[in-house]
């Protein structure tokens, strides 16, 4: 025991992994859940409202929804009025908003709501459904109350005493008697409804990106092994240059990562029905760019560290944190706005957004431009920094 303790105290990396990593990791999750769904301050859901009724009552509902603490209306009033159900559905499909609230009237003049939802966000649908249902019931209650008051006024005017008038009931009872909120609100999944196993592709992407990063840092670590056992010295005494060496490793890690993700998605298609063939173009583009960025990141970390031990410690901390923030472990929609913004500094968030567009939203490859651009820029930047850091290994 004494020897084990002494050895632990001499090994800074092991100390870091033993005590600092759990704290860092716990802190990330505490931030995600503490300021997200766990704190009671659910992040605001991005919505648009389509008012197909355009009555004073429906307008009042829209106004109430606009003031709701749980919603963020993404269009101003004028736009909302111009918005059609199809256009709103398209916005949900593109990910501009999470849910489109379509207010509809029926033959009995009751206002009902259709929520055009993105089922990948499993929380938002329930939250918005509850909020809209409440507003609809309240509106109906107000309307019923006004109707009764008008009737009473008419009866007072003709001075006829009420014969079978019901006693006044609390508004809650009125609401219950009028309708159940769940009957007034219908959730329509506009993206995942025709998919065989829609959520699996999301998780496949999350896991794939995390393992791409682990694989790339492990592969980059070979550079440190070569340095430690002097093979790097020998390689650089041949005709091989550091540029060739780093590019060679980058190409290799990119190719390996690409094959790794392909194998994973092929298995996903075979075992879980992920529609890989139907999204091949977008998948190839995203996987190629994500693999190249992960490979460059792995080389950057390797050149940043002095020893393999350092790399192991640093990569575990960074990759687990990035995966937690970027949505590989916990869906980003449960995170607070701030955490989501923070997540945009990670690979995972951009890569997962791209895969989400490909597999979930069925968007054309042109829609992947922001994700592809960010990941490509990251790849080039990390590769350049890695090259700059590797200068110290070229000559003493």
């Amino acid at each position, binding site marked *: 025991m004494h020897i084990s303790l002494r050895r632990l105290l001499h090994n800074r990396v092991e100390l870091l992994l033993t005590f600092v990593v759990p704290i860092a990791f716990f802190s990330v999750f505490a931030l995600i859940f503490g300021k997200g769904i766990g704190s009671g301050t659910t992040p605001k859901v991005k919505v648009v409202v389509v008012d197909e009724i355009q009555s004073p009552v429906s307008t009042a509902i829209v106004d109430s929804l606009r003031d709701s603490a749980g919603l963020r209306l993404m269009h101003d009033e004028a736009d909302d009025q111009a918005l059609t159900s199809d256009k709103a559905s398209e916005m949900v499909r593109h990910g501009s908003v999470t849910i489109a609230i379509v207010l509809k009237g029926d033959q009995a003049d009751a206002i009902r709501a259709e929520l055009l939802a993105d089922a990948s966000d499993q929380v938002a649908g329930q939250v918005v459904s509850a909020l809209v249902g409440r507003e609809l019931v309240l509106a109906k209650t107000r309307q019923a109350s006004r109707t009764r008051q008008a009737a009473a006024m008419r009866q007072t005017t003709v001075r006829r005493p009420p014969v079978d008038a019901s006693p006044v009931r609390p508004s809650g009872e009125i609401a219950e008697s009028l309708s159940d909120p769940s009957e007034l609100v219908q959730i329509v999944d506009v993206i995942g409804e025709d998919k065989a196993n829609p959520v699996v592709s999301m998780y496949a992407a999350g896991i794939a990106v995390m393992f791409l990063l682990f694989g790339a840092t492990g592969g980059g670590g070979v550079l440190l092994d070569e340095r430690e056992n002097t093979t790097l010295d020998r390689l*650089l*005494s041949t005709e091989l240059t550091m540029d060739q060496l780093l590019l060679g490793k980058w190409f290799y890690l990119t190719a390996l990562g690409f094959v790794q993700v392909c194998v994973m998605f092929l298995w996903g298609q075979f075992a879980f029905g992920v529609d890989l063939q139907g999204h091949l173009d977008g998948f190839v583009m995203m996987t190629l760019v994500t693999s190249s960025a992960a490979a460059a990141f792995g080389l950057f970390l390797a050149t940043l560290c002095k020893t393999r031990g350092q790399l192991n410690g640093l990569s575990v901390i960074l990759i687990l944190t990035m995966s937690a923030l970027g949505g590989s472990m916990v869906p980003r929609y449960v995170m607070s706005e701030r955490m989501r913004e923070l997540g945009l500094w990670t690979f995972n968030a951009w890569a997962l957004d791209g895969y989400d567009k490909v597999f979930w939203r069925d968007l054309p490859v042109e829609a992947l431009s922001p994700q592809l651009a960010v990941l490509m820029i990251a790849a080039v930047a990390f590769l350049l920094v890695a090259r700059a850091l590797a200068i110290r290994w070229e000559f003493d």
Partner: protein
Amino acid sequence: MIHAEAPALEIVNLRKNYRRLEALRGVDFVLERGERLAFLGPNGAGKTTLIRALAGRTRPTAGTIKVLGHPIHSIGARQALGLVPQDLALYGDLTTRENLFAFGKFHGVPRRELKKRVAWALDWTGLKDRAGDLVAGFSGGMKRRVNLACGVLHRPKIILLDEPTVGVDPQSRQRIFTMLDQLNEEGASILLTTHHLDEAEQRSDRIVILDQGRVIADGTIDELVLSTVGHSRLVKVRIDRPLVAPVTVPGGGSVRSYQVGIAGREMIETRIEDVAVELAPFLQAVRKDGYMVSDMEVHAPSLHHVFLHLTGNELRD
């Protein structure tokens, strides 16, 4: 263009500083074409720094290195050099053949020639039957042979070996030097650093001794012996009982009389210039004083003596 008359390596006033530490303090020497040169020195003398500078792995602070008459960073200079590092710089998780192919490619051996060179290397190292085995499972001697082969696949004209036989058994060492002799016979110049002084003495044409970043001796073994300890032999005589008083050896001819031995010891040591003339009077003097000689050793001067004479007996690390 390669100058036919230029030496294989020409090092002039080579200096290398690591911050305040002066690893090389103006090293000058020449390695002739086809020559086998042993580079000796205590730990920390600057041998590895020198090898690294020659292999282009460290930038000298000052001085020049010429390879076959051309500056070290000129085109072709790197191709003319073959480095065999002290550590086993191999991929243990590759087979012998895969290692050889990899380093052959890195050394720029043309694709059409690579297969032949790898076949030659497998034959040369005696590892043809282990070509498909992972290097990680090899003995130290086998790894050393692969390590050597990987550095010479491109037929370098100058081979730099940094302690190529460290940690191997006498049989493997013998094999490695036989392999080096083959390369030397084919025209390669060899520069090796070693702590095995017997290797340096037997396997090199010339010896350079480096200490504290400077060349302190350069020459053949005979030249070094003559200029340092001389050709006198060390004679050690064990007697049957402790010496009561030093023994006086009478002079004769050009030799003066002298005293040997220390009272209380059973071993008498002395140096004599001419064994044929001086040994007999010495032994007679011992017997005359009443002592019986139980054992005797005569040591010729060796590189070991030269080395200790030049670098001292103090530990360096």
